């Protein structure tokens, strides 16, 4: 079935969405994290009355303002793409996606925008307490904005709280709270926001390190580093914890993604975690070039089993177990899932034909059957498998999943050490002597962005071929429009977003060069 779709259209549509989402994500994490850091700095100003903290707050607020302004509305492009390039998907998900996004727009975005004005315009016009409240509400509002889109994304990874209605051809929400408080959504929100706090802390330390290297505004830089290092350290520890919970979610709900990002082809009990590994150019399975052998790997015994199921000796299924099935451990084969998916599609086709031919009674009966909990659980939950004819396509890119996961984790561990060193050197009053560390701090900024992007690459590439886990493959989600139209808009976006990024970097660099001493550039946006 699925081969009928133009692969180049799917790939260009995916490429376009990835491009816009990745560019959007350059701006978002800094906004989320820097907003909290600014609020902490302003709290210190209000508590101590020390004008230096006010100067520090105002400077970082300027950089926050530039990043916020350049990044604002870049996410709207993604919504345009849903309507044009992913119309089947957009219709199919219905209110499940619409409701959280509407809440995001109405509640969080307006809350954020209102209080941002007070943050920037209100320094000498409202009381200190009111200004501080506005700063905190901006930070909370920004993070609440992220909550809703992450809830929608989490639903795509683990669909819950809905029933498929064949009449409307849509998923209909039956429990808003189940969607909102799904463990996948909660962990995803906490992991994404805490990792954004880490990124923003690294940004503050990196820029402050530049001032120390230039022997400018050293007191300002040290104070900024102390706040960012403490906040960053706590956030990075929390990110590890939430990442661990997210990994467990993946092991339970997306076992193929879990096996792919660990390069686990054959499951077993007490599986070790590959701490570091490099793939060779040879395949373990000549029929599937996606499954490469390891050229080298360093494994920590039993850790993967514990990470997945909190049991050192638990069985972790590998890619081959998930494809071929494993009766001993109750793992259904892909072939069985495909049969069930095809049965669900056949029922839906029968409903469509009955509706078309005016056989109302038959159509109603089929609708009732399709919407019954038994059918939804036993057949419709495998609906997407009905489009799959080659089981190899059920495996995401192992190399991309593996490397993006390991780059993210290794950098995450480095960040913890980095924050500890930054705090130690600063509190000892010797950070200016550690020029190598200061240079490393500047170069850690792009590494933080790399780790953040890798997290999303793992999330999105790792769940392929699904756009909605087990329910809709990416190929079924795409709108049949001309590939050339998608190519044109891909390059248009590439130009627009690159221009925006250059504008942001230029404006930001200029403000960094001016520094916190300038009074003119730090009060308003």
């Amino acid at each position, binding site marked *: 079935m699925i081969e009928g779709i133009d692969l180049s259209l799917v790939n260009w549509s995916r490429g376009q969405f990835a491009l816009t989402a990745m560019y959007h994500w350059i701006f978002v994490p800094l906004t989320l994290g820097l907003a909290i850091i600014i609020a902490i700095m302003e709290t210190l100003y209000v508590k101590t009355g020390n004008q230096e903290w006010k100067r520090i707050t105002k400077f970082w607020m300027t950089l926050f303002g530039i990043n916020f302004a350049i990044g604002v509305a870049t996410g709207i492009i993604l919504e345009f793409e849903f*309507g044009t390039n992913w119309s089947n998907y957009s219709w199919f998900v219905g209110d499940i996606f619409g409701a959280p996004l509407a809440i995001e727009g109405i509640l969080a975005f307006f809350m954020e925008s209102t209080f941002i004005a007070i943050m920037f315009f209100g320094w000498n016009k409202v009381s200190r307490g009111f200004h501080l409240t506005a700063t905190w509400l901006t930070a909370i509002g920004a993070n609440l904005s992220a909550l809703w889109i992450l809830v929608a994304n989490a639903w795509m990874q683990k669909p819950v709280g809905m029933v498929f209605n064949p009449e409307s051809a849509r998923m209909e929400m039956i429990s808003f709270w189940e969607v909102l408080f799904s463990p996948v959504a909660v962990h995803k929100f906490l992991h994404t926001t805490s990792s954004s706090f880490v990124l923003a802390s690294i940004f503050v330390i990196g820029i402050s390190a530049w001032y120390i290297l230039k022997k400018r505004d050293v007191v300002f830089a040290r104070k900024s580093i102390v706040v960012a290092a403490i906040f960053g350290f706590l956030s990075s520890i929390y990110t590890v914890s939430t990442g661990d919970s997210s990994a467990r979610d993946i092991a339970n709900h997306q076992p193929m993604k879990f096996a792919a990002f660990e390069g686990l082809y054959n499951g077993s009990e007490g599986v070790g975690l590959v701490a570091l590994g490099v793939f060779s150019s040879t395949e373990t399975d000549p029929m599937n070039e996606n499954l490469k052998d390891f050229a080298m790997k360093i494994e920590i015994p039993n850790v993967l089993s514990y990470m997945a199921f909190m049991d050192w000796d638990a069985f972790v299924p590998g890619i081959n177990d998930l494809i071929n099935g494993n009766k001993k451990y109750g793992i259904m084969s892909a072939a069985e899932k495909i049969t069930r998916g095809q049965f669900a599609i056949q029922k839906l086709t029968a409903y469509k034909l009955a509706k078309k031919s005016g056989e109302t009674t038959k159509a109603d009966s089929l609708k009732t059957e399709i919407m019954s909990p038994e059918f939804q659980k036993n057949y419709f939950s495998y609906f997407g498998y009905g489009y799959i004819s080659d089981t190899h396509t059920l495996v995401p890119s192992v190399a991309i999943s593996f490397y993006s996961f390991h780059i993210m984790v290794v950098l995450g561990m480095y960040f913890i050490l980095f924050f500890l060193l930054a705090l130690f050197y600063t509190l000892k009053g010797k950070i200016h002597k550690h020029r190598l560390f200061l240079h490393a701090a500047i170069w850690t900024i792009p590494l933080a962005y790399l780790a953040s992007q890798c997290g999303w690459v793992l999330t999105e590439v790792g769940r392929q071929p699904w756009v909605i886990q087990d329910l809709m493959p990416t190929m079924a989600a795409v709108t049949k429009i001309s590939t050339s139209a998608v190519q044109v808009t891909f390059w248009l976006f590439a130009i627009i977003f690159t221009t925006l990024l250059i504008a942001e970097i230029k404006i930001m660099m200029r403000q960094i060069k001016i520094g916190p001493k300038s009074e003119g550039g730090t009060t308003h946006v």
Partner: protein
Amino acid sequence: MAECAFLFSHFLPENRGNKEIPFNFRSQYFYFIKMELFKKIIRFYRDGFANMPKWGKQVWLVILIKLFIMFVILKIFFFPNFLKTNFSNDADRSDHVLENLTNINK
């Protein structure tokens, strides 16, 4: 001042006994307060924008250009909503998606 005059217009000798001017001190008081608040907000934004530094003006220029490109050029010419443009009602849209879901080869 104009608000004060309006608020206390009931007490002016020429308006005394004039039934066409309803005497509702409370509602007029709140109206006055609301107007004052509204004016304060307007002044707050006006002063904020007027005293904006160079970088603030630059980012606002970027925002305006960006929004123009997104909503006027991209949305209208490149990103029509496929289902809204091609189908007039939800029933037709759901039929189309159902057709795609059940026969992806077509």
